[in-house]
């Protein structure tokens, strides 16, 4: 059984309260950092850990911190991105619900490292219960002297506030989040300047995902080098994977990066295979935005190597035969699921959530939704697949923020890997509205790659 760094105490009764959390060694990272380390030393440990942003982009957290501008007399901010809304991802909700003090502790240690005197946790508005949980946890931590003025006698002051969003996927994009935190529409900003130079209220700002900030706690407690020993290659440490869809045991799992994908999906310690004894058809490995893979390509790379749950292995093969780690939103599709319907559903999501700033995304997501709707409901044409690929290519890379890419990739990859299923929706239109295409060849073992002489 793999070691748990974040979820070790998740099942301890009362771990959501300060006293129990503290009795399990909680807030040790704050004590260690404030009493024995300089802010730069904390940043250095996070750099050494190799921690990569857990929100989806996978950018090294320590490097992001080191970019933070520090002009004299200008406030700096740490903002936690708890706007979890990537379909398939529910790890942050889980963490905030059951072990809120881990996030608060990480926020204090990280704020100290960055020199922030005021920090915000931006939580999506729908998570009002989690907002109440976090506010209670903050009050407890403040009461115990871990927040407020002169924390632990170190001379360091920090105030921490929870900010609710208003229900918008786009606010998970860091500059849209900052706009929203300033009380505006969530329209992403043009970068540069990056938030590290001009973020919240024009001041230098770091925005990190909930899980990234929580990971700072074990990194400081045990040292960056120890943390970096876990995992494989540049995928260091542990990662929370939200497993949903048709898996037998849905839930949040903490894995060592580098765990074989097959073990994650089929072992009883994790997903336990596919529910109701059905067979696996496809997997979305990192949240709805990443390319969907048929079962055979998910379990093995095109070179017949076992696929691992790591940043590198999941993207092995590029978009032709690979996918991405994303936010760790793992969605399994069983043999009864319809890829066309799911692609339409995801595209409707992106159309609904597009902020409307850039026309390729605003219009393109709507067109793709319409075309996919007509395919699913038996009015599609054979030319629609090429049309969809064409529209997706015109969105990708042509927008201010990555929502455009995120909308384009699921469509392009579904057609790349499941084209025959899309074509069947055109040739067997009346049948397609009453039954699904089924498993076809997607679960077959991969053909042996041709040896290129």
């Amino acid at each position: 059984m793999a070691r748990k760094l974040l979820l070790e105490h998740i099942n301890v009764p009362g771990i959501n309260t300060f006293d129990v959390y503290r009795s399990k060694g909680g807030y040790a990272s704050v004590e260690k950092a404030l009493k024995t380390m300089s802010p730069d030393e904390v940043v250095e440990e996070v750099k050494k850990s190799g921690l990569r942003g857990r929100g989806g982009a996978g950018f090294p957290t320590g490097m992001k911190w080191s970019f933070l501008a520090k002009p004299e007399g200008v406030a700096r901010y740490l903002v936690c991105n708890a706007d979890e809304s990537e379909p398939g991802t529910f790890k942050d909700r889980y963490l905030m619900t059951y072990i809120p003090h881990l996030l608060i502790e990480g926020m204090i240690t990280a704020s100290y490292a960055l020199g922030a005197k005021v920090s915000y946790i931006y939580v999506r508005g729908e998570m009002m219960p989690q907002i109440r949980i976090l506010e209670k946890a903050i009050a407890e931590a403040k009461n115990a002297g871990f927040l407020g003025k002169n924390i632990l006698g170190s001379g360091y002051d920090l105030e921490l506030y929870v900010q609710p969003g208003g229900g918008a996927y786009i606010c998970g994009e860091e500059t849209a989040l900052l706009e929203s935190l300033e009380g505006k529409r969530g329209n992403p900003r043009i970068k540069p300047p990056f938030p590290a130079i001009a973020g919240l209220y024009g001041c230098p700002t770091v925005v990190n995902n909930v899980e990234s900030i929580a990971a700072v706690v074990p990194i400081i407690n045990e040292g960056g080098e120890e943390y970096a020993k876990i995992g494989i290659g540049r995928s260091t440490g542990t990662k929370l994977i939200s497993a949903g869809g048709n898996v037998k045991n849905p839930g949040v799992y903490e894995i060592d990066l580098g765990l074989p994908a097959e073990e994650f999906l089929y072992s009883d310690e994790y997903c336990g295979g596919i529910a109701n004894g059905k067979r696996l058809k496809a997997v979305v490995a990192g949240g709805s935005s990443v390319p969907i893979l048929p079962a055979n390509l998910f379990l093995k790379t095109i070179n017949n190597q076992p696929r691992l749950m790591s940043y590198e292995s999941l993207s092995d093969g590029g978009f032709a035969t690979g996918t991405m780690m994303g936010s760790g939103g793992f969605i399994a599709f069983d043999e009864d699921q319809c890829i066309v319907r799911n692609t339409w559903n995801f595209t409707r999501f992106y159309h609904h959530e597009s902020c409307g700033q850039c026309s390729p995304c605003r219009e393109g997501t709507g067109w793709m939704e319409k075309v996919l709707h007509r395919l699913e409901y038996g009015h599609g044409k054979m030319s629609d697949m090429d049309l969809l690929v064409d529209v997706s290519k015109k969105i990708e890379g042509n927008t201010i923020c990555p929502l455009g890419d995120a909308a384009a990739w699921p469509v392009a990859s579904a057609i790349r890997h499941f084209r025959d299923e899309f074509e069947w929706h055109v040739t067997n239109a009346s049948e397609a509205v009453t039954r699904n295409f089924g498993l076809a060849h997607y679960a077959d073992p991969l053909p042996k790659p041709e040896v290129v002489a």
Partner: protein
Amino acid sequence: MLRVEETQAPVEFSPELLKKFDEIVSRYPEGKQKSALLPILHLVQAELGWLSAAAMDTVAEYLSIQSIEVYEVATFYSMYFMRPQGKYVLEVCRTGPCCLVGAEKIMDHIEEKLGVKEGEVTSDGLFSWRGVECLAACGFGPVLQIGPEYTFYENLTNEGVDKLIAELKAKGKN
């Protein structure tokens, strides 16, 4: 298109509510009180059930910003209601992972059970329902939430929904 309802009924906030507004404004630096807009709109909606133009105008006045700055925010975010709703709004997740485990059937069932279409209010004024996008609980689908507390219900079944509606009916009539 969402539009701001024309209503002239003046809105006045209670001293208790204004005290909460003041506390929220104190979380931000001097002059950045506009940051309080989203949290304040949540409080107003919890109080009134939706955001009328008059309510938004009063918020604008309180924050010393233009009314349009409130309207553009309120219509951008999906949680704010621009017209009156049922006392209980059942918001069912309609995104991919929940659909893999039966969210569409749950929505059909709710529509049949309440006898109103998505977005409409039942004649007793107690219920409305709508599909919403991913609520970040994909492993426990289908899910629904009910404001203003945003109480959360997981692993929904038709029977579970019937029971929930019956409970809310009993509670709502008191």
